[in-house]
């Protein structure tokens, strides 16, 4: 399995500001994903972070609001831009298993709890 860290673990931000969340993996991975988990809800995929190309966004999520960088095979960032209280959520990054097994197993980071006032 991969060891995944996220920074910050939590933050309280003011409306209208932006926050960049970092995701670091201890080994090279091909696929990285960003999820949002609103309070008491399930996980929703925001985008797939592709190394060397633009991220692929899911319906309802746009690059202007959630810009993503993937400069190499071990690191990615997600920025939550122009925040509003509705952006208060846990944001999680995940990576696809390195084992190369026949299935797409994902390992998750510990998450970043964001509160927007």
């Amino acid at each position, binding site marked *: 399995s991969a060891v995944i860290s996220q920074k910050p673990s939590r933050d309280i931000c003011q409306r209208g500001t932006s926050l960049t969340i970092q995701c670091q993996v201890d080994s090279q991975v091909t*696929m990285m*994903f960003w999820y949002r*988990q609103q309070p008491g*809800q*399930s*996980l*929703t*995929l925001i985008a*797939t972070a592709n190394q060397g190309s633009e991220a692929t966004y899911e319906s309802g999520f746009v690059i202007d609001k959630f810009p993503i960088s993937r400069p190499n095979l071990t690191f990615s960032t997600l920025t939550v831009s122009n925040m509003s209280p509705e952006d208060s959520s*846990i944001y*999680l990054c*995940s990576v*696809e298993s390195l084992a190369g097994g*026949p*299935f*797409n*197993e*994902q*390992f*998750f980071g*510990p*998450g970043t*709890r964001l509160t927007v006032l």
Partner: protein
Amino acid sequence: AQTVTQSQPEMSVQEAETVTLSCTYDTSESDYYLFWYKQPPSRQMILVIRQEAYKQQNATENRFSVNFQKAAKSFSLKISDSQLGDAAMYFCARGSSNTGKLIFGQGTTLQVKP
């Protein structure tokens, strides 16, 4: 629609007893994977068990096993000899073999009573 449904928002079980969490899904893909993840209050997502759709044999991982009914698109999780540490939110998820994306169900909160 490519959905995953968990119809039980909350479940409870007595310590040492057995509990089954339900999950159904919808997909148009022929090759896919199914997972159960556990999320304790620490919010760390932990993979509990996985099942390849092309395998007929149900996956087993220690006290955790699944009942995979492909035709019915059903994927339930059975926890045997429940322990206090099993208390958490459990998410069923379907993974695409093409894109690697996961679609999650709404989650089931499991309470374990001593």
